[in-house]
C-alpha cells in the first residue's frame, strides 16, 4: 500500500481531504502534517511514496521542505498545491518528480493527480530530483525574498538572491550576475538550501526576467 504525505496548514482543507479520500482507501493511505517541520519528522520515520505539499506554511515552508526531501530523499515524487499558478517552463525530465496542482481544486481532482503519480512506473536511477529552474520559478511564484544556496560535487558554491520574487543577483565562483545565474541553472543533482537573506542591502545586478534567463540558458546548453 502506498502512503501519501499531505502537508498543509489549513485544517479545513485537511479535514475535507480526510473525508473525501475514504473512497480511495484501497489505493493509498495518507498521513497529514500541518507544516514543513512536522512533515520532515514524518518523512524521517516512515516510508513515504509521495509528498503532496502547500508552499506557504509556518515554521518550515514548502520550499524548505522540498529542498530537504530533494537532498535526503530524492526518489520521493512531489506534488505542489499552489495558490499562485505553476512554473511557466516545464522541463520534460523533471515533470515526473515534481508536479503542480493549482488551488482551488476539488478532492476528486487531487485524488486523480495523486493516483496517476503513484501509478507512474519510474525506472530506478532515472530520477534527477528537482531542478534549479523549478526551485527558482517557485521562489518567483511565491514572491519570496531569500538567499538560495546551491551546492554540487566538484563545483564551487553558488548563490541566488531574490527580493520579492525577483532575481536580483547571483554569484557562482568568480562569475557574477546573469552569467553566474545561467551557469548555475544547468547544475545537475544540486543540493539547495534556503538561507535568510543578508541584512545589508544588495543592489540589483540582474535585470532580465527569470523566464527569459532560463530559456536563454537552455538554448546555450543545447548549442554547446
Amino acid at each position: 500500500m502506498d502512503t501519501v504525505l499531505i502537508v498543509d496548514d489549513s485544517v479545513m482543507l485537511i479535514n475535507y481531504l480526510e473525508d473525501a479520500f475514504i473512497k480511495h482507501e484501497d489505493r493509498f493511505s495518507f498521513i497529514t502534517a500541518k507544516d514543513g517541520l512536522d512533515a520532515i519528522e514524518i518523512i524521517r520515520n516512515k516510508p513515504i511514496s509521495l509528498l503532496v505539499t502547500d508552499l506557504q506554511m509556518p515554521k518550515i515552508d514548502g520550499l524548505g521542505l522540498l529542498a530537504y526531501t530533494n537532498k535526503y530523499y530524492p526518489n520521493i515524487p512531489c506534488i505542489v498545491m499552489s495558490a499562485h499558478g505553476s512554473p511557466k517552463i516545464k522541463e520534460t525530465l523533471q515533470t515526473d518528480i515534481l508536479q503542480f496542482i493549482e488551488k482551488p481544486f476539488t478532492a476528486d481532482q487531487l485524488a486523480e493527480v495523486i493516483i496517476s503519480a503513484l501509478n507512474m512506473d519510474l525506472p530506478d536511477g532515472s530520477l534527477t530530483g528537482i531542478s534549479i529552474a523549478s526551485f527558482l520559478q517557485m521562489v518567483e511564484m511565491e514572491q519570496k525574498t531569500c538567499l538560495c544556496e546551491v551546492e554540487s560535487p566538484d563545483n564551487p558554491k553558488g548563490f541566488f538572491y531574490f527580493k520579492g520574487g525577483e532575481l536580483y543577483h547571483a554569484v557562482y565562483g568568480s562569475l557574477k550576475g546573469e552569467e553566474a545565474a545561467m551557469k548555475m541553472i544547468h547544475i545537475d543533482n544540486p543540493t539547495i538550501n534556503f538561507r535568510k537573506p543578508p541584512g545589508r542591502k544588495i543592489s540589483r545586478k540582474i535585470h532580465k526576467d527569470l523566464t527569459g534567463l532560463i530559456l536563454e540558458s537552455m538554448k546555450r546548453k543545447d548549442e554547446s
Partner: protein
Amino acid sequence: MNKVLIADDDLQLLTILRESLARYSNKFEVVTVNDGLAAIKALQKQAFSLVVTDIQMPKVNGLVLLAYLAKNFPKIPCIIMTGHGTPFLEERLKRESLHYIEKPFKIPELAESIMSVLSQSEILGGTLNGVSVVGFLKLLEMESITCLCEIHSQDGEKGYLIFENGVLYNAFYKNLKREGAARKCFQMRNVTIKFKKTPKKNIQRRIKTRLSTLLTEAMRL
C-alpha cells in the same frame, strides 16, 4: 428553496464549502463569491435567505457588506466566519443577533448553524434585524481594522469614530470629543453605518479607555 450566499476571498475554502455543502442540497442551495463587491452584486440580482461572510476580504470587506445588508436588506440574517474569536465576543454577537462561526470549523457545524438560522428567521417571519453599532465595533476591534466610521441615526444625529488597527483613537459627536462622544455614539439606535478611509494625516490617539469598558458603560446608561 432557501438560497445561501457565501463570501470569502479564500478560493480553496469556497471550493470546499461548495462541495461539502452539496449534501445539504435538499435543505438549501449555495452560491459563492470571493469578495464583498461580488456579494453586493449577487444580492441585487437574486433573492437570498442568508448571507455567510468572512470579514477580511479585498475590494469590499465583510464589515462594509454587513453595513450594506443592514441598510438595504435588513431582513436577511447573517453568519460571520472569522479566525479570531473570543468568548466575550461570541456572547456579545449572539445578543446582537449576529451569528458567528470560528475558523477552522467542521462542515456539519456550519450546516447546522445555517439551518438553525434559516428556521429561526422562518418562525420570526424575518425579524432578525442583524446589526447594531456594538456588533460592528467589536468586529472592527477583532479584525484590527483602520477606518473612519460614520454613524447616522434616523432622527438626524451623526457621530464619528476613528479606529486605527482595531483601537478606538477618537470620537466626535456634535460638540463632544473623545470618550464622551464615543459613549453618545454607542447609545444611538436605528443607525446606518458608513465606513470611510481614515484621513491620511497622522491621527493622535485621544481615547485611552478600552473599547470594551466604554461599551459596557454605555450599555449601563
